């Protein structure tokens, strides 16, 4: 089960991942999406390594300078370089997206597998109840509540997203596990006396990996989109800058007719989300064996 591609000499490897990669490569929109995501990733890594985007908070220019050689996309209401801020925000977006996607998918995978393995018994009932409860609380209120409870902890937003975004993944994994647990390889594992924990986590859960991968990309997109709205509501990024923070400050500038901050942040966000959506769609098409190409 290696996720890397088969050598280029043979056109189609017979493994699931080889076939998926072959299918994915032929999806032009998916490949374009992946390329754009990788460009963003390089930008984010560069910020993280301190190569660029380090002057996002310094007030150096005049207020609302027009775009030009000094400030590529102009300056905002207090004279900060908009381009620098947008670049630095890429790192924030990836940070939020990756942390939330990885942790909520892991949580959803584990709880979904447990619920599916013991379906219709008490662990399942308990996990289903918890999912129902979390789904019934309006998201923004839940974030606000977590923010209250954690007293302005900078990770309140991350925790709230992880706590709510895992439920969809868990439902999907639960359904798949209910199907998988009656397969012969599970029976065989049980017959040779493997402990249940190994059966669940080493034999069943790896077979749901395609679901987890697709869900992680979907959660990543939801997380960076939610970050923007939460930051606008004042519940999101507290220290640092993000596209959401930029849009929130731009609402005053927009009324005065200065659109650069708003347009820049929106464009950065839109291109990344769009690319990720295309990537995610292509991934779903490639990994779903039943999917007939439309």
């Amino acid at each position, binding site marked *: 089960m290696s996720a890397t591609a088969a050598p280029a000499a043979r056109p189609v490897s017979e493994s699931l991942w080889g076939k998926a990669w072959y299918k994915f490569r032929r999806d032009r929109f998916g490949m374009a999406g992946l390329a754009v995501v990788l460009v963003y990733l390089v930008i984010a890594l560069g910020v993280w390594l301190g190569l660029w985007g380090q002057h996002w908070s310094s007030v150096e220019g005049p207020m609302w300078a027009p775009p030009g050689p000094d400030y590529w996309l102009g300056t905002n209401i207090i004279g900060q370089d908009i381009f620098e801020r947008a670049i630095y925000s890429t790192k924030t977006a990836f940070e939020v997206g990756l942390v939330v996607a990885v942790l909520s998918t892991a949580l959803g995978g584990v709880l979904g597998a447990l619920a599916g393995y013991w379906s219709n018994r008490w662990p399942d009932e308990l996990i289903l*109840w*918890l999912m*129902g*409860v979390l*789904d*019934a*609380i*309006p*998201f*923004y*209120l*839940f974030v*606000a*509540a*977590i923010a*209250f*409870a954690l007293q302005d902890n900078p990770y309140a937003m991350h925790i709230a997203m992880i706590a709510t975004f895992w439920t969809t993944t868990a439902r999907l994994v639960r359904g798949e596990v209910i199907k998988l647990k009656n397969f012969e390889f599970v029976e065989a594992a049980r017959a040779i006396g493997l402990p249940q924990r190994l059966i669940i986590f080493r034999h069943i859960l790896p077979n749901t990996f395609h679901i987890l991968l697709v869900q992680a990309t979907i959660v990543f997109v939801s997380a960076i*989109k939610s970050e*923007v*709205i939460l930051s*606008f*509501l*004042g*519940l999101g990024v507290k220290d640092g800058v993000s596209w*959401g923070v930029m*849009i929130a400050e*731009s*609402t005053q500038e*927009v*009324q005065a*007719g200065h*659109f650069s901050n*708003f347009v820049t942040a*929106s464009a950065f*966000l*839109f291109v990344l*989300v*769009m690319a990720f*959506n*295309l990537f995610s*769609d292509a991934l779903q098409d490639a990994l779903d064996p039943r999917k007939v190409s*439309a």
Partner: protein
Amino acid sequence: MEILQYALRKFITGIPLILGVTFISFLLMVYFGPDKTYELAGKNATPEQIAEIRHQLGYDRPFLVRYGEYLRELVTLDFGYSDSTGERVSHILERTIPISLALILPGFVLGNLLGIALALVAAHHRGRWLDKLIMGGSVVGMSISFLIVIIAFQIIFCSNYGLGWFPVRGWNVYDFWDYLRYVTVPTLATVFVALGYNTRFYRAVLVEELGRDHVRTARAFGAPPAEVLFKHVLKNAMIPIITRIMFSIPFVVVSGALLIESYFGIPGVGLVTYDAITTGDQPVLKAVVGLTAVLFVLVLILNDIFYKLVDPRVSLQ
């Protein structure tokens, strides 16, 4: 009668859900929530004054008693008085919920109807350029943040930098003409945002139904394409469609209203909630969260009853 019994049984199974939601929100918002004592006490309060205030706020009572009090409030719909304005919470809700419904409903209905219409067109032309155009458009629509749509539409339609056709903020509605003036831009924004997601979802449902045997049989018997699409496909796809519409109701009303109302300054329940979040107005937040949970459970029950109405094979047992 049978349906009534069924609904009652469903409601009883929904009680653990309501208890869970209220318990978690109570724990987070009230028990671990902000302590209002020192805000109210002012400077140099004596220990007796502080104790008095804590007693008034109920902080000195045990956890379970306070939680029970919250449940009683939820059952009697009496949530006390708002911390920031002093108005009765039930009055605030009575005043603001109709405004939010009037604001959100047109966009919600249009967004779903247009979504179904576009999905029908796309599914009918599946694989051809019209389908690809519609689906490409939905991915673009899905990729634009709701917040950006609201701000951009306000610039385009309301401000002097754009067309300037509609009022920028507020809600001075006295007759139907006023209503149209204030509701148009928020409606356009909600429809725009919902359309991408809705079209994609409905198309997937319709395409799945199109692949079924009964559709092939209908075609083989020479049923015209329009009849196949509306009578055989759409009718059979009603269950997932209704489910989606029903389940989005609680969230569209609360979350959709929250953003639109806070940005356009419309005094609906969303703006009240937003203000309550920013000022930590617990009685209001408790009311909104509790009522949304109850609404969610009611939607679950209604949804099951709808299944029965749409599909007679669904058993009531």
